[in-house]
């Protein structure tokens, strides 16, 4: 399964949008946090998990999804949210904790919920999987169209929830796809120090489902693997497990010293940054030239800037709104 030219450009645009969003968030996050880094300070307090480098996972999968499809993401959700079509203004406002944010600021960056495009996430490792299986079950029972996709990190593949959800999805033949973003690290712990197999797609056989590996953070490799898996799910043929070799270009969260990285690793990863690589490919394929790229990038940036302005100009909810929406 190959992307059309439109899909190629769509994927590139989403990657660029996500990356620019993250770069802007990175800068804004640091406001008020220098010279002394204190997580509680600045316009964006709290933990911040950037997804720079992991964009191929998001766009290659979401290229096959509509708003009605369900995505459950992780503590590192921005790239996926962008690709899934989460309202960018409301999402950035949420990251700023504003009234106009998706939840009015109750959730924050690890708890992005956009019911309009069926997007949600959880900050607890492994906990994206059960809800995705359940959404898939819901579609199956209701005879409604739509599949579910759970994203998780390679570190999460050692959490019990992974095992339980994959087994359940297989036994019930649910229209769900499990997508592992293997960025080689769970905070400071390397994959090989925590995982008994070199590749988690090898674990698919334990659930009698296909396991697919995508090497080298390859956008179109993800597109193909995800396309086939999602088609299988739509046709009622059950779940698939995909592991994508990707790269975490930033620290685990902002403020991470990253001393645990082997020397040169980060530079190597940056040299293989998937976005310039994909740009180059599109240029070589004749889909993009400098001018078109500049325009596309400019548009993406403007979307992001508009969202940031929207967020910055929004008010906070009154503090006592904290008491609301515990129950509906």
């Amino acid at each position: 399964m190959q992307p059309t030219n439109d899909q190629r450009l769509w994927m590139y645009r989403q990657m660029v949008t996500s990356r620019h969003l993250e770069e802007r968030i990175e800068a804004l996050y640091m406001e008020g946090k220098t010279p002394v880094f204190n997580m509680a300070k600045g316009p964006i307090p709290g933990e911040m998990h950037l997804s720079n480098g992991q964009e191929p996972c998001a766009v290659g999968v979401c290229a096959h999804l509509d708003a009605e499809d369900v995505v459950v993401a992780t503590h590192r959700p921005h790239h996926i949210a962008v690709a899934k079509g989460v309202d960018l203004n409301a999402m950035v406002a949420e990251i700023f904790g504003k009234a106009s944010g998706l939840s009015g600021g109750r959730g924050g960056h690890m708890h992005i919920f956009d019911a309009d495009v069926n997007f949600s996430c959880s900050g607890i490792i492994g906990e994206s999987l059960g809800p995705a299986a359940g959404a898939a079950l819901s579609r199956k029972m209701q005879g409604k169209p739509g599949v579910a996709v759970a994203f998780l990190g390679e570190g999460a593949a050692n959490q019990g929830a992974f095992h339980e959800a994959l087994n359940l999805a297989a036994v019930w033949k649910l229209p769900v796809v499990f997508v592992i973003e293997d960025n080689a690290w769970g905070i400071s712990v390397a994959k090989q120090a925590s995982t008994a197999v070199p590749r988690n797609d090898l674990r698919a056989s334990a659930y009698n489902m296909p396991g697919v590996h995508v090497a080298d953070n390859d956008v179109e490799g993800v597109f193909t693997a995800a396309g086939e898996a999602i088609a299988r799910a739509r046709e009622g043929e059950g779940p698939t497990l995909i592991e994508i070799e990707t790269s975490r270009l930033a620290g685990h969260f902002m403020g991470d010293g990253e001393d645990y990285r082997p020397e040169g690793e980060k530079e190597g990863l940056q040299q293989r940054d998937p976005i310039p690589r994909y740009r180059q490919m599109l240029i070589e394929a004749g889909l993009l030239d400098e001018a078109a790229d500049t325009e596309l990038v400019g548009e993406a940036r403007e979307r992001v800037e508009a969202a940031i302005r929207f967020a910055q100009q929004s008010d906070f909810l009154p503090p006592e709104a904290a008491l609301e929406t515990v129950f509906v």
Partner: protein
Amino acid sequence: MTNTTATDSGSRKLTIARAMAEATAQEMRADPSVFVMGEDVGPLGGVFGNTRGLYDEFGGERVRDTPISETAFIGAAVGAASDGMRPIVELMFVDFFGVCMDAIYNMMAKNTYFSGGKVKVPMVLMTSTGGGYSDGGQHSQCLYGTFAHLPGMKVVVPSNAHDAKGLMTAAIRDDNPVVFMYHKSLQGMGWLGTEKGATVATPEQSYTVEIGKAAVAKIGQDVTLVSLGAGVHHCLRAAKALGEEGVDAEVVDLRSLVPLDRETVRASVAKTGRLIVVDEDYHSFGVSGEIIASVAEHDLACLKAAPRRVAYPDIPIPFAPTMEQWALPNADKIVDAFHQMMSQ
């Protein structure tokens, strides 16, 4: 919403197990989005009988036996509930919460808040509680306080079949997650012993009992006995024994812990001036402390004597019946607590 009380219920008596199954069946007939998942809820009808008959009527698609994978299937219920379904999911014994509490308290209970009210999680988590039949320390706990302490989920604990049916119907229709904690000794399953007082007249037609309203199970003037679930029956027996001494006890059945009907408790204590809380859950940091504090912080002056609690001690639940029965709350202990209160 039809609210019915035990008195106008006609004469058909049901066990709590049957009342729960009946409420579920009625809601399943009325609403195709309601379905049931859990271990042995299908052909077996639930280890504690509360899904009996459902598999035969609704089939395996809507009454689903699950693998022993509580994290996955409770997590799945959260996902299904946010996608238009109304799952009823069973955690066979509340004692097993430790393998799946994250799905319960960090997702089921919080996703609505995290979404600013935009994502509803209309699901019921049913779970059995309680000891008294020597099932040992991993199969006999109540853990009422554990669930009630954590925000975002309603917690109901019925003491009789009438309330169980009405609370179950209300729970299924509620757009919020509800934890439905049923006490094994009240289920009316012969093999668990049967508290006769739990098997009461229960209307056949569908009705709700409002979640968040305590019931005065017996009106009295001299002392307020507050409890929930099986404890209500201990209180009623104690009230009877006290009655023979000329003491007129009032019994408050909390029925739900979240929301907690502090008003009814406070009004009762304002009248009687005396409070004894009876709780089969662990003594410390739980229900009994909360009830006493809720009264004391509100109005100290109304208390004629120091409030007391008859709770399960802070020890794991021993297997041997001699030790377990000694440790459990019962009517005699409540009567003793009253006598001690009066002698001080």
